[in-house]
């Protein structure tokens, strides 16, 4: 799976969880840019992504995530392991 494909699929999950169907998501998008993206929706997002890719994020990995690009790279790392 390429990073572009992961980004596309993660973007769809973000739109769905945040209930923002028209949101534009890029590598640089972060929680700071979207009002609806807070600690409550973040954990739902993480759970949805973990379910979709059948991966489990370590707690420390979650804290280190700065934007969607970091998330895509982390998913790539996990699924190619």
């Amino acid at each position, binding site marked *: 799976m390429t990073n572009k494909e992961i980004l596309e699929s993660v973007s769809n999950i973000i739109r769905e969880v945040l209930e923002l169907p028209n949101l534009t998501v890029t590598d640089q998008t972060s929680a700071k840019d979207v009002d*609806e993206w*807070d*600690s*409550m929706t973040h*954990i*739902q997002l*993480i*759970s949805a992504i973990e379910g979709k890719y059948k991966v489990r994020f*370590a*707690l*420390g*990995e*979650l*804290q*280190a995530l700065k934007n969607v690009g970091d998330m895509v790279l982390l998913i790539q790392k996990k699924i190619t392991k």
Partner: protein
Amino acid sequence: MPFNSYYFIFIFLPITLCGYYVLNYKNRVVLAKTWMVGASLYFYSFYNINNLPLLLFSILFNFGLTSHFHSPKKIISKSLLLKIGLVFNLGLLGFFKYGDFAIWNFNWLFHQKVEPLAMVLPLGISFFTLQQIAFLIDSYEGLNERKSFLDYSFFVTFFPQLISGPIVQYSYLMPQLENLENKKVNLDNITLGIFLFCIGLIKKVLLSDTFGVWAKPGFDELVSLDLLAAWKTSLSYTFQLYFDFSGYSDMAIGAAYLFNLKLPQNFNSPLRSKSLIEFWSRWHITLSQFITTYVFTPIVRSMPKINFQTTMVATVLAMFISGIWHGAGWTFIVYGVLHGLGLVVNHVWKKRRKKLPGILAWFITFNFINVTMVFFRAKDLEHALKVLKGMLGFDGVVIPKMGIKSVGFLKDYGVKIGTYLYPSDYFMILFLILSFYLIHQGKNSMLLEKEIKLNEKIGIFCGIAFVFCIFGMNKITEFIYFNF
């Protein structure tokens, strides 16, 4: 020793800094780290040398335990190691911090007379314990490779953040230390460090300590407070705490910059927040991140289903833990639970997607924070209720004498006319106006750190501010978070 002391500024800091760079210049990298660990332990012992064995024991135990995660021959399983580590760290914190609180509640509940332990809270225990818990969990989850004892000790004891944070992850701090470029003197970082340190010093010496004088009588001395006195008391404490802790954080970040190490930001103009959710993303940021990552997330994951209701339950639980982390007392429990419930209300409101006008949203948020701060500061619930009663006008309304006859009718409504305002009252009103201006319009140190161009003007500003603060430092006051 406090950052706002002559000994720290004129003796400890310059000597530590010179030693560190001279050793690095001579390529004695290991010795330079050892020098820093030694200096940090000296810094810690300066408050009370009796606490040093506890810090060393905590470091040794945690290092030994986490090293075992990497051992090829494991005597005990990883999950059992994690449990032992958590019990050890939380047990240590619990024993020193909550021992007497538990005894007090036991005595009250069962009418017993068990003698309290009369423990003195070891300085910084809440912070170095959290930092080591994060390291322990990260190691368990395979995020940390084996570390040397020296590196681990540096990570825990680095003096700018040892006592009151910012709480930092190993993977954030230590790669910076290994970067060879960071072992050379960097004038830009030193200037930025001095600048941030001065900003913190101004917040502490000029603002926080001044507000502290106005907050104390209302909380600790007076039996009842009229309306204006109660608001003066609560607002003064909110500003005292904000300038104290954000000032401390600025000084810690500034001091770390002198060693070419960047610490994470802890405050981002929290008092201008327009919601409680926003407030907790701006106030004591590194604690919020710790609570979100290592408390809130595991609670949510332990729930059978992740939905709005379960995340709200986890939010209240996490805020309760955050509250009690600050101190052993019912006031902190009330503070934490109120913020947890406040966040639930905020999330429910947010789901409706109806926005309040900005000024109203700020007004509600600020007042909620100001009211809950009363619980945070008060000695016990009784003192907190005294201030809150005053703020609601239950203990009378006294307005200052202004020589205006037309306000005389207010007496019919129970309003008393007091004395004329003293010069110190005008001074306080000026400080409150200045503080409201600063929290809304002032550039915070996070922005200044990114945007500021260090030039002669800034140099002159720092010089004047520094001299001013140095003269104001004749009475060293402790930072509030040293008690937590």
